[in-house]
């Protein structure tokens, strides 16, 4: 080896040591993954949204939080792999299905009744293993310039009719769309769902990359209808400076129609991690402050009574319909995907 390459090697080795040292200082303190004093929260909800909320929590309670962000499902699977040696104290999930899976594996502590009672029974675990933190409803978003409100369909099943041919936008790979299909399977049965999806597909719906793209197309009048979640419209309105600056409007299918499924994001404490700090975090999420945060930042429904939310044109939480399904059971996504694949809606 010549001199230059030796020097290069020495340089690289030094850099490696420095890099190790730098990385090492990041994950201080503690002698293991769980050695830290801070409350460890696995969050399946996006950092952009949750980081400010965690800041508020730390400010209010003085409890430090170390988050790990990831997809809700991936984190749930990671928690299942980690078992009782998980470093995590709290799991914050985007949907009830991931919490349901952990609950089933016995991975969650039972929450105190006072915490659970903050939220309607429909939006929490029947066994008390997790509690919902915010709700979202599936809606039909439409463009009033193209469609008069009076002629809106009575059910999501009507969208397979000739009047809607080529006129409905949707986001087939979006988790909420898939949850809607799962909700339909659970409430209306496999056969009816298969018939609906086949007819829906034959009716030439327009597929989009995500819910935001669907809303944009409806708002611009490119297509009259779209199947999305309720809050996209209000987020857009907030950006545009008010709902009157936006053309599109939300519509809820009446009654227990599967097209108006209400799903929740929720939180649970990992088994054996029922510290006062963890409890304080969960309580903070269902406190007035936490609920107001969700209402203002995400335009989701707060689940605690008395917390105001401005959702012009939508009924309050108590009057929301949707299919009557156990949210923990919305985890049978495998069959849903196979079905979507079968009818070609991917």
């Amino acid at each position, binding site marked *: 080896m010549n001199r230059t390459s030796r020097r290069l090697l020495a340089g690289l080795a030094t850099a490696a040591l420095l890099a190790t040292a730098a*990385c090492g200082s990041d994950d201080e303190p503690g002698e293991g993954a769980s050695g830290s004093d801070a409350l460890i929260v696995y969050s399946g909800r996006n950092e952009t949204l949750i980081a400010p909320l965690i800041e508020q929590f730390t400010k209010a309670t003085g409890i430090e939080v170390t988050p790990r962000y990831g997809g809700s499902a991936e984190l749930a699977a990671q928690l299942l792999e980690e078992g009782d040696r998980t470093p995590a104290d709290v799991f914050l999930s985007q949907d009830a299905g991931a919490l349901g899976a952990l609950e089933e594996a016995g991975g969650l502590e039972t929450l105190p009744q006072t915490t659970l009672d903050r939220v309607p029974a429909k939006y929490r675990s029947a066994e008390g293993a997790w509690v919902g933190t915010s709700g979202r409803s599936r809606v039909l978003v439409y463009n009033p310039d193209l469609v008069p409100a009076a002629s809106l369909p009575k059910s999501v099943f009507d969208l397979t009719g000739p009047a809607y041919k080529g006129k409905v936008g949707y986001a087939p790979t979006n988790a909420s769309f898939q949850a809607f299909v799962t909700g339909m399977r659970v409430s209306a049965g496999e056969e009816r769902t298969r018939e609906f999806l086949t007819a829906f597909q034959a009716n030439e719906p327009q597929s989009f990359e995500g819910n935001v793209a669907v809303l944009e197309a409806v708002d611009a009048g490119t297509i009259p209808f779209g199947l999305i979640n309720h809050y996209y419209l209000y987020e857009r309105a907030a950006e545009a400076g008010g709902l009157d600056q936006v053309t599109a409007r939300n519509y809820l299918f009446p009654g227990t129609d599967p097209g108006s499924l209400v799903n929740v994001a929720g939180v649970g404490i990992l088994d054996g991690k029922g510290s006062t700090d963890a409890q304080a975090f969960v309580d903070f999420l269902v406190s007035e402050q936490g609920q107001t945060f969700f209402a203002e930042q995400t335009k989701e429904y707060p689940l605690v009574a008395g917390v105001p939310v401005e959702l012009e044109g939508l009924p309050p939480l108590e009057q929301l319909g949707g299919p009557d399904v156990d949210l923990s059971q919305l985890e049978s996504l495998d069959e849903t995907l196979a079905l979507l694949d079968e009818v070609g809606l991917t």
Partner: protein
Amino acid sequence: MTQVLDAPARVGTPHPGRRRALLQRVGLGPSGSSRPPLVLLVPAVVTAGVALLPLVYLVVRAFEEGLGVVGDVLLRERTARLLLRSLALASSVTLACLVIGVGLAWLTTRSDLPGRRTWAVVAALPLAVPTYVAAFAWISFLPELAGPVGAFVVLTACSYPYVLLPVAATLRRLDPAGEEVARSLGLSPWQAFRRATLPQLRPAMAAGGLLVALYALSDFGAVSIMRFDAFTRVIYTSYRSSFDRTPAAVLGLLLVAVTVVLVWFEGRSRGRASYSRVGSGGARAQTTVRLGLLRLPAVLLTTGLAGLSLGVPVAALVYWSAVGDRGQVDLPALLSAAGTSVGFAFLGALVTTLLAVPVGVLAARRSGRLPQLLERAAWVGHALPGIVVAFSLVFLAVRYAYPLYQRTPVLVLAYVVLFLPLAVGAVRASAAQSPPALEEVARAAGARPLEVLRRVTLPLAAPGIGAGAVLVFLTCMKELPATLLLQPLGSATLATQMWTATGVAAYSAAAPYAAALVLLSALPTYLLGVRTGALDRTPEVSP
């Protein structure tokens, strides 16, 4: 005719009989009977063991619910259909990459393409673009591209350098004698290339093609954004849907089986020929082929490819940054993420390369069963989606290395398992190109195996080892699923921050992170391109 051509194609191979005898005597020859030196064997076995770690987990998880479940998962109609779909995608991407890679390699090394040194560097740069960035870029300009075509375009545009780089390196080093003899026997330039040069490129093409194929099989970013229902998507959704890890593990094992078959094919197509050059003096400079009338089409083609593979993602990044309504970039956060990314990727590259050296050198020098097995073991993790490797290491670290769990070493280990073949291939290729005779002489002069390794083999293979390290570095920078699950609590890399921003559809917020990722990767890619170019001794031909 073929027989005549065979000789120059393998120019420099000494008389087989005499050579084998000599090599066996010094214990270094490519004979299966002599035992490889322990200095190489022991670390190589360790490396192979590390590479096989995910198998432990996959087998435990796959069979915990009994053979019945395994059969159910394997026999599902959807499993077979999606595997075939993915194999079709992987083979078409590989084919396209071979054509583009060999074509570009030839144009940039052997033709009088204007500015070919620059092109040699530019053509390597797509390696710096993660598939999920490229896919987002394409779909934002051409939404109708979603589907198999989009997945094909993105994967091809991002991965052809895996073929281009080794082929270009081989082309530059190739002794022109073979082609000259073929020409003197009356073959046209194309025939001479096809019959004298192409066979010499076979190992490089096979190795590069295998990397591309496995990349296409295990990629999740491009296929999910392009909404192409590929095999990896089944694995992801079975974690995502039922939270039942058994089906995912069974499917992971299936992917390992496919990999073993592909690696075996690669080994077969590599052949037994010797590719090193032994003779007096160095190889002479290559002759440059004048493109003549084909010059303009060649320039257009090269420019077009660069536009598709680099222009589209860069244009999208610029566009997203321009339309950004989220205002200013959080510079400290960006810098910190960049530092973390570079740190992790650097450690990943360093450890992976160190572990790859013994396996690569053994594979280059020995044709016995054990070195082959050890080398092939290194490939196991490469076709597995990052998330499967991540869960394997979660499982193992939580049980057996808890103090290291969710700390840098376990993340680095994941990078090793995932990207080992990139380094092993590079080490093997460059070690195979340096003549074994030099080691034989050192041995004959009384040097111990370790000394031979340190003073002869490694210095000769150093450029190739460096190139392998750079490849691993680049790939670590782009890695997302394993990094998300295994990175130390509270740390953030460019890739994870980008993921966060795209999660709330804030493309403008994602753009600076994506741009930093591409720029930081472009520098080593540039060095990689220049390194292959540095061996170029051919003067540019003035038009």
